[in-house]
């Protein structure tokens, strides 16, 4: 990661960033490791330091369909912040990954105990992870690169107006 590149920690005010960092432990995962499964308990989360993680959804007959990849500096997981604390997607490493790992219960405890810290972390998760990914998902819904006049994703000719 370079100083030129904004990341999850970079989006937090320095004092809160330092506080959050004290709750982190460094971990590494080999390539092709399943980190969590859709529906599983969201009891941890990570900020990726290096490597790539693919988020996927299980589709019967197709296996795990990758919907997005995350890389350096990005937040992996936000379901730990909101009830019912279950993962909405699955995650698997593509290449070996190093990351800061957080215990969700411990961070939620810190958030509840210190409203200023809580607001900063919640804002950051909302802006960096949820807001940005929602905008990205909406853009992809438009199927921008599809041929004009075709239905998004099906590739079938669109109905005449």
């Amino acid at each position: 990661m370079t100083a030129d590149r904004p990341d999850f920690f970079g989006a937090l005010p320095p004092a809160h960033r330092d506080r959050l960092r004290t709750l982190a432990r460094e971990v590494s995962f080999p390539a092709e490791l399943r980190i969590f499964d859709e529906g599983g308990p969201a009891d941890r989360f990570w900020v990726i330091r290096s490597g790539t993680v693919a988020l996927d959804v299980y589709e019967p007959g197709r296996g795990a369909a990758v919907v997005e990849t995350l890389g350096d500096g990005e937040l992996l997981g936000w379901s730990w912040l909101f009830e019912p604390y279950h993962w909405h997607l699955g995650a698997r490493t593509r290449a070996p990954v190093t990351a800061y790992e957080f215990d969700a219960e411990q961070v939620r405890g810190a958030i509840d105990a210190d409203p200023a810290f809580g607001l900063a972390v919640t804002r950051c998760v909302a802006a960096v992870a949820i807001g940005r990914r929602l905008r990205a998902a909406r853009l992809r819904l438009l199927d921008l690169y599809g041929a004009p006049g075709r239905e998004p994703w099906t590739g079938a000719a669109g109905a005449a107006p």
Partner: protein
Amino acid sequence: MTAARPDLVPVPYRVAARTARTPDTADLVLDPVADALPPFAPGQFAMVYAFGVGDIPLSLSAQDGHRLTHTIRAVGAVSRALHGLWPGTTVGVRGPFGIGWEPPAVEGTDLLVVAGGLGLAPLRPLVRAVLAARPRYGRVAVLIGTRTPGDLLCTQDIEDWRAAGARVEVTVDRPDNAWQGDVGVVTDLLDRAEFAPRNAAAFLCGPEVMMRATARELVRRGLAPDRIQLSLERTMHCGTGHCGHCQLGPLLLCRDGPVVSWSHAEPLLLVREL
């Protein structure tokens, strides 16, 4: 020899080769039958005439002496006719038209080239020109968004550009099972690129929605709006600034574009129906 009024009278070119790139996109390589058009700058376009059908604006995706290459996606009557041509057929070509990409004069500037879908084609000559003068620039990143892995254009170029010192990243909207690269929108790739926002210039080409999202994200990251260039598309007819078909507010894009800066484009793109 150069043709007399190449902006008004189509100059005959023969299809020398045709290479299918994706199911609906092909490269047409054109050689002049006799007189040639003047050289094109990266980002300029030609009006290419399929005889008996009509003519459409097409950017140049490569130029080698008098030889021109266009990358054509079949979307309607004229583009389908051109896309389906075989070697030996003759087409008419007018040009070069418009204002192309303007690489920064300041040495050491970091460059970001962001392409969506077919938008990679008009950026190809720019990337080649930049990499031919690699020491003049700082870090060079080429970020490409495409629909599926099978829709990726210029796969050989991508290898060549990496070998020539560019960082090339590709993301797809819809991966297949074999795809091991990134999945997501092209703006996400900005996280992968390394650039100093105050010493960087960006070049964007692709669907307008994608360019607007990318330009806004770049401004948020500190790039000055006048250092972001984008290639805009509007219906074109004459190519010479006379018919008004390509008007965008005060601009005639065939003459004042297709490449314009974000500082000029943003207020115009916010007005609907322009």
